[in-house]
Every structure is written in structure tokens, then in C-alpha cells.
């Protein structure tokens, strides 16, 4: 906004004379950081909504900048974001990477996620943040109701622990430069460097994991041994493992031709499958752990 707008309480009074305590929660702005008048940077009504001269003269005319999503006078995304970025692009809580970010280029407005006239912004509370993100990311909402998931719904991990919605140097808005660096902020034990590194693990955790949720254990994209056999095809990894290899399966009982007990349920097809022995797939620091079993 222009510097000429009156950010003072006197300036606000032009608005609060009408938009008073009977107007919903407009005055709750004064509970928030944007309402601290002792801070010269706080914007005042006109700092965000514009000088709105026409609106002051004729209430049927809309303010210069309208944020209400359901208003028929809703301002354009650019106009709304320009208001916020006037301060937040580089001076107050700078959002340096916003420009050209996925959210910016998809037409997301700051006010789509941030509610300014409340001291309980949903997006800033880990418990309620998913409500905001799931408004657009609806497939992810479903994924977080799967058998294996991060504790997003309990507020112990939040979307913004991994993603920076304002843009970042990482892929997929990761808060760090890479996906693995982001995962290491909680799973530092997997960082190494290990003596025996596992190439897909070092590169990208999502080669094997679905971080938003999975129907199988440990957030895996698909379960072992199938997951492992997507990359391993020698020695016992080349084997065909199927339901026939389970206890009482056709292989174990010889299609009924061999009495129970004659064959053993195949190791790689049971329990934790490959991980029953190769448990150190994230890397091993044992001098004899080249095969990730130590």
C-alpha cells in the first residue's frame, strides 16, 4: 500500500466507526500482531484495505482491497497479495522465495490461508493447520487417514514442518534444500554418512516411502518383498514370492500333493520379508554390514 495511508488509530476510526463490535470479529485485529499500535510497522485498516475513499463516502462501494472470500467484490489475487508483500516480501518476516513459488504461480492468495482478524489463526496452530492445507490438498487429506501415517491429525507433525508454503530452495516446497535434508530434521539418525550407503536411500526418502500415508507399514509405497524386488534381482532377491509361499500356501503344501510340513514357508515372503534380515536398509556402519544386515 501507499505510504500515505493513515496507519494510526485515528486513521482506523474512519473504519471502526461503522465496522465496530457489532461487525463480527473485525476488532479482533487488535489482539493480533497487526493491531499493535506501538509498533510503527503495523498497517492499520487502510494499510491493508487501501484508503478506500469511495467506500468511506458511500458504504455500498467496496473498499479498495477486499479479502473476504465470499464477497462479490473480492479483489484479485495480485491485489490482495501485493498488500501483504508490501511489508512481507523483504522487510517483516521476509518471504523471499514467494515470487515464482508453486503457490504463487497457482494463484494462491495470502489471505486464502491466513486469517488476520483473529488471534487464533488456524494455519499457525499445528492442530488446526491441516484444516487449512486440506482445503486445496484434498487427496492428501485422505492419505492422512490411512493405516500408516505421520501424526499430522494429532498436531505433532505439521504440514509446515516439511513444506514451506511461502516458497523454498528445495523441491516440492521442502523446508530444506533437498527431501533428505528435510527428513533428517526429525530422522537425523538416518543421515550418516554410513560406511555402507544404500543408493536410493541417500538420494531421496520418497523412493520407498509415501510420507502422506500408506496402507502398509512404515509409510512404504508398496510392501516388501515387492518393493525391494523393484531394484534387486540377484541371489535370493530374484525369487518369485507369492501367496503360495505363506504358511499353508500351495508351495508349502505342494499344491496338496505334499503333506503339511514338508516345505518351509519362504523366508523372504513372510514376516518383515527382506527386512527380517536386511534390517539396516537405511545404511550400516558395521564393517561387515555391506548387505545391510548388521
Amino acid at each position, binding site marked *: 500500500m501507499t505510504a500515505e495511508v493513515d496507519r494510526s488509530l485515528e486513521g482506523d476510526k474512519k473504519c471502526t466507526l461503522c465496522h465496530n463490535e457489532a461487525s463480527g470479529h473485525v476488532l479482533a485485529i487488535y*489482539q493480533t500482531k497487526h493491531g499493535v499500535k*506501538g509498533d510503527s510497522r503495523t498497517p492499520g485498516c487502510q494499510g491493508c484495505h487501501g484508503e478506500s475513499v469511495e467506500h468511506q463516502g458511500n458504504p455500498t462501494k467496496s473498499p479498495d482491497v477486499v479479502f473476504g472470500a465470499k464477497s462479490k467484490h473480492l479483489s484479485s489475487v495480485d491485489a490482495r497479495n501485493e498488500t501483504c508483500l508490501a511489508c512481507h516480501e523483504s522487510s517483516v518476516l521476509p518471504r523471499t522465495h514467494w515470487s515464482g513459488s508453486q503457490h504463487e504461480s497457482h494463484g494462491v492468495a495470502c489471505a486464502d490461508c491466513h486469517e488476520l482478524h483473529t488471534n487464533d489463526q488456524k494455519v499457525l496452530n499445528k492442530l488446526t493447520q491441516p484444516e487449512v492445507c486440506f482445503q486445496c490438498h*484434498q487427496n492428501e487429506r485422505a492419505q492422512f487417514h490411512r493405516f500408516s501415517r505421520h501424526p499430522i491429525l494429532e498436531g505433532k507433525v505439521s504440514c509446515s514442518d516439511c513444506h514451506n508454503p511461502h516458497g523454498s530452495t528445495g523441491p516440492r516446497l521442502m523446508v530444506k534444500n533437498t527431501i533428505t535434508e528435510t527428513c533428517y530434521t526429525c530422522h537425523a539418525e538416518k543421515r550418516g554418512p554410513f560406511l555402507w550407503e544404500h543408493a536410493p536411500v541417500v538420494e531421496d526418502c520418497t523412493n520407498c516411502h509415501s510420507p502422506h500415508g500408506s496402507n502398509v507399514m512404515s509409510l512404504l509405497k508398496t510392501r516388501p518383498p515387492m518393493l525391494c524386488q523393484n531394484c534387486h534381482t540377484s541371489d535370493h532377491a530374484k525369487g518369485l514370492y507369492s501367496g503360495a509361499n505363506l504358511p499353508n500356501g500351495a508351495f508349502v503344501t505342494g499344491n496338496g500333493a505334499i503333506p503339511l510340513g514338508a516345505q518351509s514357508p519362504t523366508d523372504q515372503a513372510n514376516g518383515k520379508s527382506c527386512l527380517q534380515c536386511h534390517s539396516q536398509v537405511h545404511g550400516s556402519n558395521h564393517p561387515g554390514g555391506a548387505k545391510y*544386515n548388521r
Partner: protein
Amino acid sequence: MMNKKNACGFGAGSMRVLVGALIPSALLMVLSAFAAAQTIPQNTTGRNPGTQVPPGATVPDATTAASQTTPQRRINFGAGYVSDGSFKFGEYNGLEKSGLFGIGNLDLSGGAPYDSKDTWRWRLQGSNLGLKNRYTSLEFGKQGKYEFRLAYNQILANTNDSFQTPYLGIGTDTLSLPTNWLVPVEPQKSATALNYRSLDPTIGAGSVYNSHGVLTAPTPAQLDTMAAVRAADLPDFRNVDLSLTRKRGEAEVLLSPNEKIDVPLSYKFEHKDGLKTVGGVNDRNTQDSALLPYRVNWDTDQASGAVNVKLKKLFLSLAYYGSFFHNNTEHMIWADPAVLGLTSAMAEEPSSQFHQFTATGSYKLSRDAKLVVVGSVGRGAQNQAFINPSLSNEGALQFGLPRSSLDGVVYTGLASAKFTAKHKKWEYIADFRFDDRDNRSPVDIYLFQDDASLKTGTSPFSGLYGLPTGLGTNTNIYNNRALSKATYKANGQAEYAISRSQFLTAGYSWERIDRHCTNSWITCEDAHLVNENTVRADYHKSRGTLTSRLEYAFSERRGDYNEDAFLAETPMANHIPASGATVSLYDYLKETGLTGFGPVAGLPAAPLTGDAAIFTPNNNTVAQAQYGTRNILNEIPGFRKYYVADRNRNHARAEFDLNGKDKITLHATGELDDDDYVNTKLGLKRRTWWAATIDASYTGSEDLVADVFYTYDNQRHFMAGDAYGSNSTATFVGRAGDTILDGPCFSTVADRNASAKIDPCLNFTHNDRDKIDTAGFTLRKKNLAANKLELAGEVMYTRARTLNAVTGGSYVNNPLALAAPAPVLPTGTSAVFYISAANWPITRNDQISIRPNFTYAISKSATLQGFYWYQRLMSSDWRYQALQYGAKPNFLPTSERSPSYKVNVAGLSLTWVF
């Protein structure tokens, strides 16, 4: 309000308020500590089903200007009851035990009035106080000058409460077996070999074929032996709860000495403690495996700081991030249940450090043009001492170590530049990114025996090329690999405004990945150079209440796949073995043009001679001993690892949004990813994922909101494999007459064996598919009962299916086809059966939760809240089958079960606003 300053520089009035707030919160914490160790349940807001907010969030609207402009203080307390204990239900919410639990939340804030010149403010928040997943935070500061935030966050993550183990010493780094432990055996099969089937009185007592091919029941003496084993061992198995507790403390400071400079600082400390399972394998007698209760005792410190300089058009930042992981347990030792007195050892995750400096600069070239440049360098290091070979008597490290620790170092780097501009109807983005992981860890040769396997034979490299003497043919002679990767990416995008409401975007990006290994004697990566080109287009229209968007992108990834990359791990592949060969394996492969798979052929017409007979006898894969490994490492020609394989990717997304000024809003999305690994003959050939959601909201009035959504998610992985065998001249199984094979590809054992490597009957496919339906509904009605009552409720349902379909088959010998003195099979009887693959049982997880709740306003400052929560999970998973008693000969049973549950929770709490 003017406040006098105290010595700390805080407003004295504010301090009084702060102290006043801390007292009730401390009382609440003490009270909560006496409550059952449970957490509060969550209720809903009537928007976005399935998301959760704490009770107490819904409070009466403030009606006066004073109350609207003054931060409200809120305390919520009460009690609830859980009907049934379930670790899975309480996986993260702390409600894993049945019984009473306490409810406690608070949100207190205060400070100088908004119209004061003083900018002092504070806020104390807490949820689940005194409970295992408590959270508290305290924020205070003078806005624009300094701000502090202190937080404590704890979570209990439950894994399983049905796990059983006989091990002692749980929670330490040494697991032992009870002194009365007997090696479980099925004496009718072997008097000494480990066989956990004996733990089940029915399965263990099964009949077996004796050496004459006669089905024989166990003798009374053998049954007595098994009874003795069960009597000794079964009581040793006991339940151990598997869970991890994470405790995290955070401190953040934002200093703003003036409007042009910010200095944010933060420090986080985290401690993880508890138990999880890891698989441990032993191999002295029989390859046996146990899921071990593995102690987690980890500390992680993270520190960050930055100096941000904010000028009119220029923003500069220099930042530091450090992460320090410390594992308080260096290794784990466990007793081998198959060989009494033998122990095995595992190295735990090594302690490590990571330091990173990042410089960021952005410059506003004009009102609509901006340039952002970032440079980042990092250094990760790990120098945990290797496990002392003498700590375990497994003999894995009997040949010594080349060094006492890795002294591993990884340098990371990032350089990126992004230019964005708007001009009339156009918007442009151009960016470049370079990302590097440079592993400079030293590379050495490590000699080891797998698991606890005894050394056999003599390696053809024993005593040569600087190696010690005494190496066995099954001794692994391995190089570690220092995996490095450099990624270059350039991207350009332009958006054109067709009209005020319609926009068209087109973009192109190029990415090159260079994988390499420091000090590797040969190219170590499956794909050294990979290039990916992506084109994309996006059309969206936003007019009035309607927004729609269509996106499409196509990527083509191609690389130089190297089927001999596995040799980088085996340095002896570059040396001539002392087995009569004239060249090294690597030279042999170069001369012949073969890969480690050897010729794609059956048995040669005439016996091979010379190097071929040594390296690829019978046209089989290269012999392990000839390059110093116990296991076959090579890949089948045509096999591709999916994360580096050539790929065509299609991505499409459609979105429709009717954002009502009216009562109804509709939102629908559909998304598709299709990865076609075009040059992959074996391995993952295709991954397809698509999902669709429809979400509708009805706002009847300010008092009535209803939401409903449905999502269908479908994922498919299709892979092809080859369970090839080894060509051999063997013509029968058991006795000379046992030659008939029952299979579609061959009719005799001899024919099958001669072409075992190219047997088409050993080709197989996996078709793994997830089909998941998720639906939710919420309803919220306010201002009932003279505006005092609010009702809300939520129903969530997830129906998840994982289907693993398999085609192909496997051979299994007829157990009656035995060597003499067993008789030859009757004429026409198959010596080998061909067993068709069977689909895996469907993995099912069906979950429903129903959560109605109410809020009743007792007065302007007090509300009563009540809730009921019913949740049920119906789960079945075949992975547990082999973990039951008697199911597997060589898996230590754990008795873990699929975690189905049915839980009712109810609670009542009071929220006091002041």
C-alpha cells in the same frame, strides 16, 4: 496503559499478569499429572472432516469492543473415559489404555493494550498438559524489538503391544536368553537344527518323510523332546510394549535491533527413547532370524541463526544451521537362539554432525521483476568408532579392519538463481539450480563373513593383492562406496493472460543428474548420467464463483544404465584370481561383451574351457568366489532400477471449484501420475496413480454448516521378474529314475536343468494395487437452546485394500524323490512339481470413527463441552502369519497380530474464559 519497567526490561504490569497466568497453569499441570497418562481427544469444527482441534476452541463470541480487542484467556479442564485399550488407536493420541484420563488445555495471553505505545505481549499455551503427549509454549517480547518463544513438545508413538520375545536385558544394548533356554528342534527332522515349529504342539508334531521316503510320525521320545522344549521356552516369551517417546524442547529468539536488521536464532533439543524391532540374522548352523527389541536412545540438537538485512530493494541473509545427532548406544549384541553361547552384534546408527551455511540475496529490479540468488554449503561428518570385532564371537570380522572408524565426510552444496517478472499480460519465471552431494569418505577394502557363517574353502585371492591369507571362498572382499550426486536443473515458464479471467501457462525444464563415487575403481552407479526433459501446460479460468484448472506435464528421462555397476563393490573383480584364469573378471566381461549375468543361454553344447569355464561355468552367472563375494550381485540384462531407469511420465490434474457466495460450495479434483519405464524389461515397468475427490459444503446460515467429501485413490505398481536358475547337467532328483517334471515348460528334470537359466516358466510378474476409499461428513449447528448450545459431529470412513497379484510359478521337489535307500518313485510320478504362484491375501484396513460433541454456554465466561468418540479398525495383514508360533522353522515367533480394535471414548470438560 503505561507500565513501569523492571530490571528485565519487561513491563511490570505484564509480569504480574504473566505470573498470574503461570500459577493456574502450573496448578493445572500438577492436577493433570495425577490423571491417567492419557491425552485429550479431539473434536471437530464442522469444516474439513478428519481434522482435529482441541476442545475449548469453541467459545462464546465476544460482544463488546473491549472484549474483542483484548486477548481472551482460556482454561479447559475435565475428564474422560476410554473403554478399551488399543495401541493402534492410541498410536499418537495417547489414549492407548482403558480407563479415566484427564483433559487439560490452556491459552492465556496478555500484554500492553493495543493502543499503548508499549508493544510488550505474551502468550502461554498448553495442550494435553501433564500427559504423555503434552505441549506447552510461552511467547513473549516487544514486537518489533525482540520476541522469544519457548516450547516443549512430547509425543508417545505406539507401535505394538502384542509383541512377544524371550530375550532378557530389554532396554539395554545386550540381549541374552534365559538360562533355561533350549534350542527349539523338531527331532523327527533333525536332532540339532533350529526349528521353531516345535513350539507348536500340533504343527511341531507333524509327520515327516524318513530317508526311505516313508511318511513317519514322531516317536514318543521325539515328542518328549519337543514337550521339554516347549516347557522350557514358551514361558520365556512375554509381552513387550513397543513404543517411542519423543521429547523436544525449543527456544527461538527474534532480535530486531532496527527495522533493517533481523537476527532470528533457534535451538532445539530432542530426545527419543523406547523400543522398536529390527531384524537380526544369525547363520552359524541355520540361517535364523529374530525380530529384536531394539533400544532407541537418541539425542538430537539443532541450532540455527541468521542475520537478515532488509534494505529498500535488497534483501540479504546469512544463515547457519547445525544438526548434531548422538546415539547413546553404539551397538547391540544378542544371543543366537540356535547356538547357545554364540552372540551376534549390530552397529547402531552412528552419531553425526551437520553444519550448513546459506547466503540468500534478493533484489527487486523493478516493481514487477525480482531476482533471488541462493548459495549454500554444508558439511556432514561421522566418525563413530567401528564395532570392536572381539565384541561378538560370530567371526564376521576375523580378518581385521582397515581403519578404526569411517571418518566419513559429505559436502553438500546448493546454488540457485530465480528471476521472476510480470509485464502486461505476461508473467515469467526462469530459474536454475545446482545441488551437490559430494561424499569424500575414504574408501577401503573390508573383509567379512556374512552373519555368523563359518569360513569354507580357500579364496582365489587369499594372500594376493595385499590381502591376508586364510580367506575363504565365502569371504566377502568388499569396497565401500562413497555415493555422490550432482543435479543441474533449469526451468522456464511463461503465463499469458488470455483475458481477465483466463490464463494459459507453458513451461519447460531440464534436469541432469550426475552420479559418481569418490575413489571408486570403476563407475559405481547404475546410471551415471541421467537427463530429464519436461514440458508442461496449464490453463485456468477464474470467473465469479467458478474456478477451473487443467494441468498437464510430460517428462522424458533417459540415462546411460550400467549393468556392471555392482562390480564397484568388489575390487577383486579387477584382479586375476588364482584359479587358473588368465584375466580378471572385469577384463573377461569386457573381452566377451558379457555382463555379470553371463551368457543368456542354457547349458553349452560342449563343456566350456579356459576363462569361460572359470568365470561363467555352464553359461551361468559369474562365480562369486572369482570376484570375492558370497552372494551373486549381478543384474539380469534388461533389468532397471526404477529410480534411475528411463522413464516417460505423464502428469495431469483437473480442478473445479464453485466457491459459493451462495449456500453451496463444490470442489472437485482429479489427479493422475503415470510412470512408464519404457526400456525396462525386468523390474518395475509401470507405476500409475490417480485420485479423485469431491467435496461439498452447505452453509444453511451462520449457524449451520455441513461438509461432505469422498476421495478415491488408486495406485498400481507393475513389475516383471525372472527367478532364473543355474544350468546344470543333473538329470534326476533322488534316484536315477526320478526324472519326471510336472510343468508346462519341460517334461523332464534334465531338460529343465539344462535350460534353468532361460526357463520361461520362471518369469513372473507382480501387480500391486492399492484401492482406497475415504469419506467424511461433518455437521455443525450453533445457537440452539436460546443461543447456548452448539452441536457438532463427524463421521470418517476409510476402506483400504492392497491387492498383490502374482503370475508365474516355482519348482519344488517331490519329498519322496530321495536318494537311496529310498525307493525310486513309482512310474509316472513327478519328481518335481511346478507350483503356480498365488495372489497374496488382500491387506485390509477399514476404519470408521464417529464423533459427536456439544458445547453449552453456562455463562459468558464458562462453557461445558462433551464428546463421544467411537472408532473401529478392522485390519488384516498377511505379514503376521509367519510370526505366530509354529509357523516358520527359522523365524523367532513374536505372536504379533494385526491391530484391529473397537474403542469408545467419552469426556466432559469445562472451559473458563476470562
